[in-house]
């Protein structure tokens, strides 16, 4: 049991990093109402840029900054493909993702770069998880705080309005195209930043590290929204709930690996988690109501003495 508990800090740290990525996905998927598939590419791009900056300059601050900036650019490309060239959002994301695969190979000059914490001054490392945890805690709190303030400004509100009702927003004189581009940029900037933190944490950047990022992000959003939807509908709480969703996802994953679940089944587990979290509330809504009715009916019948 102690062994199990000692494996949880890692799950927590991974959860926070995935949470940051999931916030990025939340901005496009929930706020802008656009399914953006760029993230599988931009997550790896963030990691790749971070790794190459670490190797060249050995400076974690710059590496995170560059990753974020390049992430913004990735989102910008998807945004422009969508708004300027009229390519459907989902396809625009896939196109950027494909492009990024090639670009990432060029950045990494191969498929994999090691940024071992024994040789480089990384911000985070698997060697010292408690240290990584409080740093990640501060980073995520700062980012949620910043986003909360940002989406309260005029521009932020306009972006939210764009997602809620683009036609109405347009009629109100909001430049929806510009807002979509900005939203996509911020989203991918955060995703790339998460990729950079992840590369530092695990000590390497790999071309395949982004594959499945979108699934983890969506899992986190779904889990988070279901658990927290009854607490408050405040925007900051929603962002926090996404992070908690990611942490829960990560803990379930770590638990499964720790207790010798056949690892060939891991992908199915991810799908199961989402299915359960989406399915159970639905079943409760539909069949719970029927069950309630049936119970009431029975009570009535008993009262009538039949």
């Amino acid at each position: 049991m102690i062994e199990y508990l000692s494996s949880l800090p890692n799950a927590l740290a991974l959860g926070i990093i995935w949470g940051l990525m999931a916030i990025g996905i939340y901005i496009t998927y929930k706020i802008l109402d656009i399914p953006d598939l760029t993230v599988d590419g931009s997550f790896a791009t963030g990691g790749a840029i971070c790794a190459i900056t670490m190797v060249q300059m050995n400076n974690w601050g710059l590496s995170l900054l560059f990753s974020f900036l390049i992430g913004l650019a990735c989102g910008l490309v998807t945004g422009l493909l969508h708004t300027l060239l009229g390519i459907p959002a989902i396809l625009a994301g896939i196109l950027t993702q494909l492009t990024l695969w090639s670009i990432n190979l060029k950045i990494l000059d191969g498929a994999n770069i090691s940024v071992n914490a024994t040789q480089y001054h990384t911000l985070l490392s698997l060697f010292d998880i408690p240290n990584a945890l409080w740093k990640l805690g501060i980073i995520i709190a700062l980012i949620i705080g910043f986003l909360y303030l940002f989406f309260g400004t005029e521009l932020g509100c306009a972006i939210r309005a764009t997602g809620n009702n683009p036609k109405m927003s347009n009629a109100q004189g909001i430049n929806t195209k510009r807002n979509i581009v900005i939203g996509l940029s911020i989203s991918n900037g955060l995703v790339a930043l998460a990729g950079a933190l992840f590369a530092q944490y695990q000590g390497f950047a790999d071309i395949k590290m982004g594959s499945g990022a979108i699934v983890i992000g969506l899992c986190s959003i779904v889990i988070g929204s279901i658990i927290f939807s009854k607490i408050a509908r405040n925007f900051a709480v929603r962002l926090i709930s996404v992070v908690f969703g990611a942490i829960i996802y990560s803990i379930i994953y770590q638990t499964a690996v720790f207790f010798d679940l056949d690892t060939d089944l891991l992908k199915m587990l991810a799908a199961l988690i989402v299915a359960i979290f989406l399915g159970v509330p639905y079943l409760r809504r539909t069949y719970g109501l029927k069950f309630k009715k049936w119970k009431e009916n029975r009570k009535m019948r008993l009262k009538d003495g039949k």
Partner: protein
Amino acid sequence: MKKKTLLTLLVAPMLIGAATGCEAKADFTIGISQLVRHAALDAATNGFMSAVKEGMKEAGKTVKFLKKNASGDSSNCVVIANTFVSKNVDLIMANATPALQAAANSTLEIPILGTSITDYASALKIDSSEVTKRNISGTSDLAPLDEQAEMILDKNIFPSISKVGLLYCSAETNSLFQVERVEKLLQDGGLATTRLSFSDSNDISSVLNKAKGSVDLIYIPTDNTAASCADTIAGFVRPNKIPVVAGEEGLCAKCGVLTLSINYNTLGQVTGQMALEVLLNNADISNMKIRYDSNPQKKYNETICQELGITPPEGYTKIA
């Protein structure tokens, strides 16, 4: 209700774990982290396990393996490595590069043995490919590239070739490393080369079709992605009568003519021997040299050789 769902999700695997975890404690526990399931990596893991089991039996000790597979997702390697560290295993065997890197970043104490790694210097960003000077050693699957190139250049085997296509997956560090070396050797030998790189199994057939008519022979290095779509490659090269020289036996068995192949099972067994030295004889892992399969095997594919009318040279055995 939601809390209950969550609790069930968290507790259920714990109970299963508790139920299965009550077996007798072994003398040694070894964690095996493998990147993805495919023939070569599986063979290395099996070779490792059989060698360790045998050695432990002789020494009168028991050993327990925790075998985990990351399903090709490198972030799973982190979770697996961390699990091994939490369980405080006696040794970690990391099969393939990301698995090794994740383990290398998780612990400085637990000895780590890598296998199916081509070059330790580039995988760990260290200066030496011989010793790591830390808690890591292992075996390398670097194929005998010089001899492979000689095979292609041998006019007795391939009398009339002038242009060689080098087929590899651009997402694999190891493949590029091998292709660069072989490319240089072939060019020095007077052949023209062209790189046929694909990014994943989906575009391999279009890359091959593009090469149609422009190459006389295709060389494929030890490449995990190519290995997993060997049938697709065979479906192209056999009708078009293009001979393939492969970097490993699994590929050659499906689509190749000749190979000079290291055996991943043997490689795993060599790694197993190293594990025994570390666990039973307390050998110092930080000074253990990286080992290789010292006896690569010359093999040929009988069916495809007959199709192309190639007589396998002496000293080659047919792939069973």
